[in-house]
């Protein structure tokens, strides 16, 4: 009898301990990420990380994020390492975050190159990768059947220029020259613009690539001029855009329309390097914070509220990278608040469930089955003179337009 009672007691205590262990909430939610403290991606990466840090500080000030699986708020702890823009170091550090730090949430570094090495690791370890700005289309191929990735911000880069192609056709532009730097991000935009324009009946009269490191465009600009285009689109990183616009300004050439992508991402950086005169009337995309989502926002602060709080806290002026970092925090927060269980699979299911139903300061959050962002689109903007200086303003499509476009652009004096 005594032995039986003892056995029952042991069984009872064991099951109690087991059930407590199963339901015990973690003391903190460990969020692992990388940033590039130096190298090619440092400028955008550190700003993106600052946005994420600001989100973490904000939620911790309120006691943490609400985790539905435990029915309470839990503080978040950011664990971040500096990958110095190196993919080999980044892969090692992602591995460390997963296997040694055992983070609950994994967030990728800036851009496709530094995100690429995280994808197979996340998939192998079955941890959901929150991809902030890695917009390469090959991360989201249906054939790969990878459910462990979600692009939280921008649409895949091959989607970006579709609005631009429509705008060019609306202007009646028939002859278009496309120049691009040989990298995934630029090349996929150039290819999409080319194919979309052809579908719309326009002629691509010049289509060439240059190395990423190109710093002189004088000869290429004259070759483009020989093709007599009505519009020229140059796709590249910031350094490419800067060199292209500087050389165009000093070339004496004239094209009725010029498009470059980076003013949308780093307006002030490009403006300071190029100067106001060369930037005037140039077209670009328009993305937050240049396009300001306020009234539409259903989740998290409006863009105005975020900017005010961020700058008040001592942060620098915000740009797209800062917004992307903060926005990722918001998506993580919502996934934790909606996931029935504290598991990666449950978070992914929750994301699918609220996809297309929430609007943040970065736009509509909507992902497809592969995790690619399809909710946001990038209107076309033009850099126009205003009483307060040059401003990149949305001009197309009509429902997003904040100003009337100027086409053809005036000749430079």
């Amino acid at each position: 009898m005594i032995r039986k009672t003892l056995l029952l007691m042991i069984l009872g205590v064991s099951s109690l301990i087991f059930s407590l262990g199963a339901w015990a909430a973690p003391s903190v939610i460990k969020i692992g990420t990388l940033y590039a403290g130096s190298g090619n991606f440092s400028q955008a990466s550190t700003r993106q990380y600052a946005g994420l840090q600001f989100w973490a500080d904000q939620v911790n000030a309120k006691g943490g994020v609400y985790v539905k699986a435990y029915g309470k708020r839990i503080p978040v702890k950011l664990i971040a390492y500096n990958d110095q823009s190196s993919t080999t170091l980044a892969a090692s550090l992602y591995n460390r975050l997963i296997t040694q730090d055992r983070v609950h949430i994994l967030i990728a570094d800036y851009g496709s190159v530094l995100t690429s090495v995280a994808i197979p690791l996340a998939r192998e370890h079955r941890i959901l990768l929150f991809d902030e700005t890695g917009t390469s289309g090959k991360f989201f191929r249906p054939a790969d059947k990878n459910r462990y990735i979600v692009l939280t911000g921008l649409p895949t880069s091959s989607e970006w220029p579709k609005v631009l192609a429509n705008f060019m056709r609306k202007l009646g532009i028939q002859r278009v020259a496309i120049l691009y730097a040989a990298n995934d991000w630029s090349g996929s935009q150039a290819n999409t613009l080319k194919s979309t324009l052809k579908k719309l009946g326009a002629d691509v009269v010049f289509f060439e690539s240059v190395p990423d490191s190109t710093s002189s465009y004088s000869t290429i600009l004259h070759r483009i001029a020989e093709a007599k285009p009505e519009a020229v689109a140059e796709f590249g990183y910031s350094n490419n855009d800067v060199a292209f616009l500087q050389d165009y300004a000093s070339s004496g050439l004239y094209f009725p329309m010029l498009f470059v992508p980076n003013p949308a991402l780093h307006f002030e950086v490009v403006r300071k390097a190029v100067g106001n005169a060369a930037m005037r009337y140039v077209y670009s995309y328009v993305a937050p914070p240049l396009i300001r989502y306020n009234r539409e926002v259903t989740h998290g602060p409006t863009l105005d509220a975020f900017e005010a709080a961020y700058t008040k806290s001592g942060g620098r002026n915000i740009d797209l990278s800062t917004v992307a970092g903060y926005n990722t925090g918001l998506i993580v927060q919502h996934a934790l608040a909606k996931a029935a269980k504290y598991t990666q699979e449950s978070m992914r299911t929750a994301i699918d469930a609220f996809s297309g139903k929430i609007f943040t300061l970065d736009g509509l959050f909507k992902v497809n089955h592969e995790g690619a962002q399809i909710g946001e689109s990038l209107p076309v903007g033009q850099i126009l003179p205003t009483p307060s200086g040059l401003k990149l303003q949305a001009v197309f499509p009509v429902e997003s337009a904040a100003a009337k476009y100027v086409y053809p652009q005036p000749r430079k004096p």
Partner: protein
Amino acid sequence: MPKTWRSTAVIVAITLLTFVFVPYIYNNQFLLFNMMMYMALALGLNIIYGYTGYLPFGYVGFFGAGAYGGALAITFLHWSPYLAVIVGGGAAVLVGMILIPLFRLSGAYFSIANLAAAEALYYIVANPHLESITQGPYGISLPQVYDPNGAYWTMLFILLFALVLSGFIRGSRFGLALAAIRENPLSASMSGVNVVKLRSISWLLSALVAGLAGATFGWYISVFYPETVFGLGIGVFTIVFVLFGGIGTVLGPIVGTLILYGAYNYIGISTPQYFQLVYGLIIVLLVLFLPNGLVSLAKRRGIDVP
């Protein structure tokens, strides 16, 4: 059995045991993989630089050629990754053969010409017009063969192969002939050493090791861009690791990589804000006080370093 070969056998055994058992107590497999990769690259570079005196600044070109050679074998021929690794080694050897005329140059001119060749190779691979073959700038994706464990053991095998190869060269007449070429090619030639042939063989062996390592690296990470595998940082690290350990030895590149790559990761994690400063200081001190690498400390005390 010559003494060098015995010492090499000991180094091989210790390396094998280390990389077999360390994963049981340290689970950042990719860091260990990278450590092995840089050790193999350092040993491969040492075959041409340490034994013949020719420093190829563009050594990473072979690494990238191997990564792409292996990836193309997987993508187009649907070969197993193990066979693809061999194809990667072959691709690097092919590139090495094309670059043999660079040996008409010497010293800094050879180094710079080699660097230019590696950059040219990078731009060829990244050329959008070759998208149907190399995927151009859009990068390679090999999720169908992703197998980190398989790649880990393959890299260990390549490291052991590089060790055995280095030990064999150092203890053989071939190695002696290479040393003669390093000291004075003209005198070596007049002594009956076929300078062109032996130098070319060591060059191709060096390329083979880098190509095998590159193909295995591509297999491990399975998603990569041209700049990932042709990044000059990989070549610079390899050269620094060889110099730090000591050129012309089997042990030097291993020790150099172990300490410097270990420090690289430790500093990068513990004090990332001082990373460039600390790492730069280490290299400056090395150049000032240990120009012949760590093994020179032992040699000064009369200890023979394999």
